[in-house]
């Protein structure tokens, strides 16, 4: 429920949001207005954070709700939770924009990529089963790698930006991050 604390102060629980999306799928404009009222602050926050420019974030938000209106009929079959579904549309659109703005390519060093980094047993022990899984699993990674994952997700950093922030070559950054993601996945599945 914590994830809803900013944007849905009043009546709309995830179940309500779920119902609203279902009604939007039936082209219910009032439901669409209410869905916007309940969720636009959270999604605008995501756009602003990733796009870092207010006017572009405003454009993006409009596009995002057009997509939500159009995609609502596919929501029920998607098996996503409502907030994840909405946030994913917002993040994907914002990331698409920012990547199109600054095209880059990043090779991966296939020879060294994705070989297993053995999990650190001490860190495994620290990661409890309490709390949100992702936080516990990020704690199992080295601090710098966990920071890179967070930076990419929250700020929409590209590989070039991450490499610069962490002061490593871009290809190294990618190899690093991919390994971290594989380890994260193993932890999330446990």
């Amino acid at each position: 429920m914590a994830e809803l604390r900013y944007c849905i102060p009043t009546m709309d629980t995830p179940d309500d949001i779920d119902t609203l999306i279902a009604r939007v799928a039936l082209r219910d404009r009032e439901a669409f207005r209410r869905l916007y009222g309940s969720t636009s602050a959270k999604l605008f926050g995501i756009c602003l954070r990733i796009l870092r420019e207010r006017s572009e974030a405003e454009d993006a938000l409009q596009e995002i709700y057009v997509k939500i209106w159009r995609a609502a009929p596919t929501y029920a079959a998607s098996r996503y939770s409502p907030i994840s579904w909405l946030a994913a549309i917002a993040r994907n659109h914002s990331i698409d924009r920012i990547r199109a703005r600054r095209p880059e390519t990043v090779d991966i060093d296939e020879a060294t990529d994705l070989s297993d980094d053995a999990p650190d047993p001490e860190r495994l022990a620290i990661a409890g089963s309490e709390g949100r899984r992702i936080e516990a699993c990020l704690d199992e990674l080295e601090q710098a790698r966990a920071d890179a994952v967070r930076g990419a997700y929250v700020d929409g950093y590209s590989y070039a930006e991450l490499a610069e922030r962490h002061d490593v070559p871009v290809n190294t950054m990618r190899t690093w991050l991919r390994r971290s993601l594989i380890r994260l996945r193993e932890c999330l599945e446990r």
Partner: protein
Amino acid sequence: MSDEHDMERSDRALAAEYVLGVLPHAERRVFAARLDEDEALQDEVRFWTEQLSPLADETEAVEPPAAVFDALETRLFAPAQAAKAGWWSSLAFWRGLAVASLAALVLAGVYLASTPGPRPEQPSYVAEISSENGALKLVAFVDAEAGVIRINRTEGVPESGRDFELWLIEGSNAPVSLGVLPGAARSSHEVPEDLTSRLSGAVLAISDEPKGGSPTGQPTGAVLAAGTVVEI
């Protein structure tokens, strides 16, 4: 059907990179295109989306200016309201159009393309999609600029418990789903951006699918109707 556990490690990493947002633009587009057709990848993307979603709590919510919603409402609803009284929603118009020759369709498309808003820079396309016996008829207008295909179904409804699904087939590529047709006669379908430039001569087809659409990402039922997209 690839089992989730058979998925290549590199595909798993790609799915995670996609959700995280770090993939460079070109790779991101390629992955998004594969995602449309690969259920195992979709599952993987859903896994990461749900698992990473709590990280979005770190982002502070910001109230957007009211102008955004006003513009949104105008964009989504005002044209529809304006068109309600007009020919776009006139069943007689569409019935007539569906039985008319493709030439008439082309003319109507020109009219459509030239009516609302600024003149689109990209070419426009139309298609007449019909079954051999005429029991299912649809007309499609492609708004390449907006990246949407607008469908008007003038004849035919799915069998009980079944849905119609719309497919775009470009060249010798596998069909790309543009979504399930809703109960309403008119619907809009987004076209993947990488296909908008390759629409001329492509085929739009309707298949008979289980409720909610094909479970595999490819047509599973009979192809009931098809038509070629022509540029106008």
